[in-house]
């Protein structure tokens, strides 16, 4: 499937082959080595981490201007979200990821519809596939249960993070994805704090094109 562009492809790959001195024999050897790399996907050096992963995750997240709350169980999340929204004078309505629609949002006085993100949403609530302590990062996998735009269009993004899903490093997050999802979702978005820009005089400003605020509710329930 190369459209009407066969010549450019053949020309470029052809030149690469000749520059690399490609022949059937060294191609076979190289393919075998490549196969091993793909199979084993060896990692590079990783920075060490303190043993208390949650504390480290919290520290790294807060350094990025993410705020964090903790609750015991999923059922407690709506009340914690409501308290956060009220504390900041934010609207008590918006979109919630369909994967979280069965939580008692209405009981907490919130009006969140289970759906994808809309341009006029001010608040979006999502879960996350996992979170990464090393950098204070959320890993969001796009799909019906976690729509990509819901964490992007609203000015406030709230994410529920299960404590047991906080992994040490990005490599661990990929391994979880390999084990649990088989193939990658269309979009894996790693989110580390509110959107920002430093383009004007290298001065960091929060809220460029994405959310101004990222708030996490960590759920201790296993």
């Amino acid at each position, binding site marked *: *499937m190369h459209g009407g*562009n066969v010549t*450019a492809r053949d*020309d*470029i*790959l052809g*030149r*690469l*082959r000749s*520059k*690399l001195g490609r022949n059937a024999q060294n191609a076979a050897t*190289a393919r075998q080595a490549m196969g091993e*790399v*793909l199979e084993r*996907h*060896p990692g*590079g*050096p990783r*920075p*060490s981490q303190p043993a208390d992963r949650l504390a480290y995750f919290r520290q*790294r997240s807060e350094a*990025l201007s993410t705020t964090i709350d903790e609750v015991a169980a999923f059922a407690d999340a709506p009340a914690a979200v409501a308290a956060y929204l009220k504390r900041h004078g934010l609207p008590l309505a918006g979109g919630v990821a369909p994967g979280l629609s069965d939580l008692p949002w209405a009981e907490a006085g919130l009006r969140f519809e289970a*759906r*994808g*993100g809309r*341009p006029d949403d001010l608040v979006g609530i999502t879960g996350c596939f996992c979170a990464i302590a090393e*950098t204070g*990062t959320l890993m969001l996998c*796009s*799909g*019906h249960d976690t*729509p*990509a735009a819901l964490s992007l269009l609203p000015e406030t993004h709230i994410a529920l993070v299960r404590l047991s899903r906080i992994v040490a490093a*990005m*490599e661990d997050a*990929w391994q979880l994805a390999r084990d649990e999802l088989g*193939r*990658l*979702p*269309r*979009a*894996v*978005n*790693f*989110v*580390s704090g*509110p*959107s*920002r*820009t*430093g*383009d*004007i*005089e*290298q001065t960091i*400003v929060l809220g*460029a*094109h*994405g*959310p101004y605020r990222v708030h996490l509710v960590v759920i201790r329930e296993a």
Partner: protein
Amino acid sequence: MHFKARVGEKLADRILQENLAKAKPKFVDSRAKVMLELDDIEATREAAKQIRNRSLENLDLWLETFESKATEAGAQVHYARDSQEICKLVVDIARRHGVRKITKSKSMVTEEAGLNRALEAAGIQPVETDLGEYILQINDNEPPSHIIAPVFHKSKEEISDLFARTHNTPRKTDINELTREAREQLRPHFLSSDMGISGGNFIIAETGSVAIVTNEGNGRLCTTLPKVHVVITGIEKAIATLDDLSTLLRLLPRSATGQAITNYVSVLTGTKRPDEFDGPEHLYFILVDNGRADLIGSEFQDMLRCIRCGACMNHCPVYQTIGGHAYGWVYPGPMGSVLTPLYQGLENALDLPHAATLCNQCGVVCPVKIPLPELLRKLREKQVERGLRPLSERIALRAWAWVARRPALYALGTKIGVRYLKWLASGKDRIKVLGVAPAWTQGRDFPAPQGETFRELYARGQRDCAR
């Protein structure tokens, strides 16, 4: 304009000089601080270098693997040999899908291609959405002066004026307010564009994905909302696995902006799935050669490891003094001084390999250990080999070589030379006008020789030893 003339202009530009002086320490200091979070910086750089080398050493096969994985996931993979082919492919794709407006996330390869001009000529509106790139676009398509901070050369006052003029809004001077204004101007474009164009920091063979690293969120918007997404990136950006990506990501944002990670890292694979609310229905890759393939297997192959972090320019005393525009093409600083002659022709960038003190600051900070000074030196050699140096320089070098092979004559020559310089200095320690080469002292003084020559010192040392 000639490089030297541009440099003269930039040095005389007071506002630019102030802006450069203000911007420099921010990148340098924050990088230095955040690199220390890595337990073993050297081992991480070495690993990154190996990862990039592994791709380049079998680039043909990695591209084939990438292609088959990407196609499997629903993307279409195209190749472009040069700028013209890039523009033609994009315009064709846009026409095929009836596209009127394109939102663009930052991509240096599209700068190489002059894509925006081609789109406009085809009646398609490109909207740059990275804040810096947007500022440049509304300022009459000014070129970027830095690969990750496109308006590195501009002060916020200049941007305030530009926004007030272009948006017809009251003049704002607070950077927060300026950013919000850009957000409000651009949001409607995101929602109404039919196609998004992004670069690609890496393409991943394991999964056929593209990895895009951004802070603002514009990259996510461009690749989530429009129904067509076109990724335009260089063929050299292939890496093997997601774990390789993880290693490289420990260095790229740190080296670029002094962040442990950028706000967003998007790894995108294929098209919208049936159960999804959003995502593009069509995904195209345009993998660009534009001079890259010819570097494979050459003495300049190391340059293809570049991950476009900008650390080399942030740490370059020459870049910090003249800014990015003086370099004349898309890529400035040390990496630009290597890439421009290689991609645009040696003869079209004769001064760039010489626009360096070879102090090796760039080589020390480069996250993938590209020996930039060595490559600059090789380019200088190439110029000599191909007879591209000016006649006067060639004659002077010949003459010097001839003399240098005759020690007695050489000693006499240096003796006379030193006397002459001392005479020029007339007792002071600096020479204001260098008699035989007055151009050299136009912007600086020449230090006057002090005390004895090396030969005299050496001879005396020998005599003292003998005693």
